[in-house]
């Protein structure tokens, strides 16, 4: 399983780096820790409910999400294998698809956003350009689109199974 993912910002934001204003192009997101088990549990349950809702409705999105979840649970833990890496790329759920799945279900999407954002803002999870901690003023600079996409990417990478 991946321990971190990199999200490329659609709208770069300005931040301080080495005493100069610099444009941030990507955010590194690390897997959640045990510090937020309640949030992890809530989001996993909402995702499971969304998948079930879509299955009941016969949606194609659920097939992709279920297959990705099953493959995540069953795949080889040897992360050095190139075959495994290419398999990871093929089987990951598209973040936009994840958001669409949640949005078309009975799950309260606003609460999913709020809870996942809390996870992202926890200590040691999100870093601009890989190494700069994201302060509250920086969080406020992200656009809604980027925030939504980051949430989708995070759920797809770490909270699907």
């Amino acid at each position: 399983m991946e321990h971190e993912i990199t999200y490329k910002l659609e709208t770069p934001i300005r931040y301080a780096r080495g005493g100069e204003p610099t444009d941030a192009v990507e955010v590194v997101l690390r897997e959640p820790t045990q510090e937020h088990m309640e949030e992890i549990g809530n989001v996993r349950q909402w995702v499971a409910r969304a998948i079930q809702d879509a299955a009941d409705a016969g949606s194609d999105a659920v097939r992709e999400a279920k297959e990705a979840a099953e493959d995540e649970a069953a795949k080889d833990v040897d992360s050095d294998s190139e075959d495994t890496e290419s398999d990871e790329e093929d089987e990951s759920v598209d973040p936009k698809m994840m958001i669409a799945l949640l949005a078309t279900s009975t799950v309260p999407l606003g609460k999913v956003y709020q809870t996942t954002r809390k996870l992202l803002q926890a200590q040691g999870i999100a870093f601009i350009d890989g190494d700069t901690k994201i302060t509250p003023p920086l969080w406020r600079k992200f656009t809604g689109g980027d925030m939504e996409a980051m949430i989708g990417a995070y759920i797809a990478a770490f909270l699907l199974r």
Partner: protein
Amino acid sequence: MATQLSDAVVEVNDDVVGIVPNSLSFTEGKGEQRVLPVSEGGGRVSQLFANDLESNFATVSFSVRVTTVNIAKLLAWKENANRNLVTIAGEDPDGSDVIRTFSQAAFTSDYEVPIQAEGVVDVVFMANAPT
């Protein structure tokens, strides 16, 4: 009717700093200039304008109260040498604003931390002229 600007957000390295009210000031980094007379004879004197580049650095000054969080911030700014970025943003009730960004800001003084009931630390950053 214009309103005195007495309130502004101060951010150092993208972190909002709570400051003592009425303690914030800055310079634009334009330095000092001199107007020197040049005699051209016959009573004619013309002007020579001189820019003292030694003073062409901006400063940002404010005071912070002594809390554990602020003590940690002061130390971090110091350890960053001249790799701090200071931003000031103030807006009046009519919506006109003043925003200044000071790059390569250095907290140069050997500051003292008073462990007192109303202790404050005076902070002065020297930086590049703001943009």
